[in-house]
């Protein structure tokens, strides 16, 4: 393999993990837009997706599609429960309090997962075999195509939901102006609950499709969650195509950095991007600056 083939390989696998970050990032943005909360527990739903699918498929011998369905369902329920028990009772709390609560929720979920499944690392079987496919000199797994496909479906569904369904439109209205939305009859409490449910489901889906490639354990949520956040920040917390682009940028840069510079610093690359964006353009790469209201 020559260098250009290497680079193609890095870019393709970077796009694949980047797609995962994009989906996780969408989850961050959805909650942020309806509540102004950065949900630090977002990554744990990614972990739950992978671990629950594994549990239903490998331990309970259910079929893979049914296991995936159940895993998303359970993760969504956990997300909704978390909102009901820990977020909803704190009306208008200080951001500091909310940061601490969601961190608490995050390590609680991680701890329970550790209690249930131990500290071992597990592999979820690939969705359709492990015969590699060679594409212009680069090798891809069929799972990579599943990732691209499912991510695309999620992005389109996300767009349709928020722009063409009545609930989605109501949720967007809430993110612009909560008081005005409640005046026109939108139940703001429900939209917050919905946003937690939807982003848990998105996180879980992302966790499921990546698990066959990268393996899964009780603590994969931290890194995946943080990189998803990085994607959302690059996209300016818009929940749209900016976040998707953000995820792909992080994925590709990380993969190139790991391949060409040093694999040990792979995780550091995402965080350096995160810090640079936060320092230089906290409003995101694709959005114009906004004045702050006090």
């Amino acid at each position, binding site marked *: 393999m020559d260098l250009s083939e290497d680079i193609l390989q890095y870019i393709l696998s970077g796009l694949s993990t980047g797609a995962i970050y994009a989906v996780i990032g969408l989850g961050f943005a959805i909650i942020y837009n309806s509540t102004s*909360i950065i949900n630090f527990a977002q990554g744990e739903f990614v972990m739950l997706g992978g671990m629950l699918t594994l549990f239903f498929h490998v331990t309970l011998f259910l079929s893979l599609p049914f296991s995936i369905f159940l895993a998303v369902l359970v993760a969504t329920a956990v997300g909704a429960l978390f909102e009901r028990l820990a977020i909803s*009772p704190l009306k208008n709390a200080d951001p500091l309090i909310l940061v601490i609560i969601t*961190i*608490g*929720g995050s*390590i609680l979920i991680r701890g329970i997962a*550790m209690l249930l499944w131990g500290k071992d690392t597990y592999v979820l079987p690939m969705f359709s075999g492990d015969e590699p496919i060679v594409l212009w000199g680069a090798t891809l797994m069929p799972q990579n195509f599943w990732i691209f496909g499912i991510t695309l479906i999620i992005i389109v569904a996300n767009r349709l939901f928020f722009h063409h369904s009545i609930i989605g439109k109501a949720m967007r209205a809430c993110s612009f102006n909560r008081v005005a939305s409640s005046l026109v009859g939108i139940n703001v409490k429900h939209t917050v609950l919905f946003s937690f449910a939807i982003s848990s489901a998105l996180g879980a889906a992302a966790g499921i499709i990546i698990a066959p490639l990268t393996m899964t354990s009780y603590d994969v949520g*931290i890194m995946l969650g943080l990189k998803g956040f990085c994607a959302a920040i690059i996209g300016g917390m818009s929940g749209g195509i900016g976040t998707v682009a953000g995820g792909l940028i992080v994925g590709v840069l990380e993969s190139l950095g790991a391949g060409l510079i040093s694999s040990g610093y792979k995780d550091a690359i995402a965080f*350096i991007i995160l810090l640079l964006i936060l320092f230089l353009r*906290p409003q995101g790469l694709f959005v114009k600056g906004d004045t702050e209201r006090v």
Partner: protein
Amino acid sequence: MKQELLKFFLFTALIGIAPVFIGKGYLINVFVFVGIYTILAVALNLLLGLAGQISLGQAAFFGLGAYISGVLTATHAVNPWLSMVIAVVTVGIIAFILGFPILKLKGHYLAMATLGMGIIVYIIFNETVDITGGPSGLSGIPHLSLGGIIFNSDLKNYYLVWFFAVTIILLSVNLAASRIGRALRAIHDSEVAARIMGVNARLLKVQIFSISGVISALAGSLYAHTVTFISPTSFGFNVSIELLTMVIIGGLGSIYGSFLGAAILTLLPEFFRTFQDYDIIVYGLTLIVITMFMPGGLVRGVPLLFRSLFKKEPMPQSNEKRG
């Protein structure tokens, strides 16, 4: 202020005679760590409780302090006290420089940025194997010594660490009661209002971040010289979360509360062996339950709870948005 002084002398006296009751066994060693974590929790509390600025990367400064001290003494044979000074000053400068861009951020973004900083530093500890020894750690760090006394026993280390801890507590109580302390509390309540009143909020936030870093680095240096072995896991993300939990348990803004939080979280695992496996569940639950039901921490929450139990006063709700 008189009351504060009395409280301080009482606390210092208790710490001074505590070894008589603790004995010379294993427990005294645990109390050395209580001292180190008290220093760290107080450092975070100055930033979080006083100025209202969260940091999820405190372990980075703790680790930098430990590694600078450790590498200088173990690899380059620098005098331990000198290396401690170098560690503290270097971390202070790093924190000051990093503070400007980091503390421009607020709330969730600040939390994420400090978290990112912590993880990057942790990765550097692991990857710079030539300097730090990487994941397998750095050993052979010498003990501190003073006028012929080598601090190589648990009891000597107890008094060494607690000398620094008590000094830091005194300085912190003083700082909180000073003009700077009031300015920081004003920033906590409303940064805009504080600015309008003429507080240089930006510089003050950076300064307190830097002070917090310096104190953490001191704790790191003490850690390196008392344990004589360091490895990256002692300075990871979990440690930052543990410190956050200590501060929240004790009570935001309460200096002695930080001691209480540090003591509880360091002693519990020693009494419940099984606790060690499930500690993160306990941390998670504690963070949620205390912030939801006892936002002032144990130091303020327990007396309130008693009062409301016996006098039937309603529990005050103080987690409403301020400002």
